[in-house]
């Protein structure tokens, strides 16, 4: 998604010295970003607006971000142009510009005992909520007089002392929200620390795709069998708790 200055959209460039290029590894998986080399410096462009404020960018040391106006580069927030954008840059997707070098295979190495601990971290990217974890009393006061068209699109399951509602549009009641990523329900505003690994994590935890895995912000999780979800209705609720 190239942003065009003619549309009034702002175009941002990231500049970093070539000797610090390794730090760009953190954003190597952003497919939209393009990169070019220019002497001692490396340039990157085509960021989504939300990516510019993302933690991944803020963590890169020695970088500068410029805004392009009339072919002059302004430091972000500054009114004075600093320099011109070098001409004749050769842009290529960042994922190809920074290839991964695998460590040499060690023929004498026999144990595979490294472990990766899974963590969630706050994410800047917005995702629509898909599930709501609420409690019995909250749901009861709402559902007893609810219109059935609000209940029909939803599924539900009792989880220990709480109730998990899945589907959209959500009911107007209090609770914790989750968003859906593959078969994971992640707390709203969070994502895996190693987001690229989510497919691999799923293969390990949920090979047949029979479960939904609900994550808590404290990195714990629990599984829910998909076929134990039931359509939400007043009678289903009443019969469960009578």
């Amino acid at each position, binding site marked *: 998604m190239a942003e065009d200055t003619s549309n009034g959209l702002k175009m941002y460039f990231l500049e970093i010295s070539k000797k610090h290029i390794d730090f760009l590894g953190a954003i190597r998986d952003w497919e939209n970003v393009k990169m070019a080399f220019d002497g001692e410096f490396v340039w990157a462009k085509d960021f989504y607006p939300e990516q510019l404020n993302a933690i991944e960018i803020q963590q890169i040391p020695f970088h500068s971000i410029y805004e392009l106006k009339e072919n002059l580069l302004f430091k972000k927030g500054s009114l004075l142009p600093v320099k011109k954008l070098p001409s004749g840059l050769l842009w290529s997707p960042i994922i190809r510009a920074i290839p991964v070098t695998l460590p040499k295979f060690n023929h004498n190495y026999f144990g595979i005992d490294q472990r990766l601990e899974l963590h969630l971290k706050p994410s800047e990217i917005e995702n629509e909520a898909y599930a709501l974890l609420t409690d019995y009393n909250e749901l009861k006061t709402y559902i007893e007089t609810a*219109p*059935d*068209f609000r209940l029909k*699109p939803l599924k539900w399951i009792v989880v220990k002392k709480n109730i998990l509602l899945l589907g959209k549009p959500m009911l107007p009641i209090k609770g914790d929200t989750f968003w859906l990523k593959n078969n994971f329900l992640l707390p709203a505003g969070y994502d895996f620390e190693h987001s690229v690994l989510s497919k691999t994590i799923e293969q390990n935890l949920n090979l047949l795709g029979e479960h939904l895995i609900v994550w808590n912000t404290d990195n714990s999780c629990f599984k829910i069998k998909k076929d134990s979800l039931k359509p939400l*209705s*007043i009678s289903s609720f009443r019969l469960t708790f009578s």
Partner: protein
Amino acid sequence: MPFLETIYHLRTIEQIILYNKMTKVLSKEEQETILFLESQYENEMLEYPGQAPDFDGEAALWGAKTIYFAAQLLLFRDHKVEELYTFLPDFKGEIDAKAMLSADLCLRFLPQIILELKRIDADDLAIPILEKYMAAFSYSAIGFDVVSETVNVDIVFSNPCLKQLYLNRVVERKAEKTALIDSVQKELLAGFGDYKHVFWNEL
């Protein structure tokens, strides 16, 4: 028990099967039918929002008989026009929320029979009688154009449970004419909240 059998099939597989020809319903059979309809009502009550009104046996039986003879009239026309009212008598009790919901157990199938009667003979004298009942029991008539827009929603909206059920059915059947009545439309929009485009964009 031909009457009970017919009503049983109607309630379980939603088909009308007739076993005899225009015979009177015995009072013993009436009692059995009321018991059956009461158990059906108790099942449906589970799905009713809030506090459901009590079962009204008289109204339920009247609804069952109305649909039973309306179905018979589709097939058998040996009787004189004056006799129509003996088969399709008025409802004697008060038409309130509990009567409307109890009668609806069977009456909800009546619009289809009226449409069929119209298809056979649009001037059939049984049609105005049945349409009069549909207008009175407006909950059962939602979505079928058998009744004009002069629906009186006051009785319906006087009971919160029936009111919500009424709105549910308006949405389910996408009954536009009913939905455009001011008081109904206001309540519907309140129920949709921010998601009108999901539930009923055209309204």
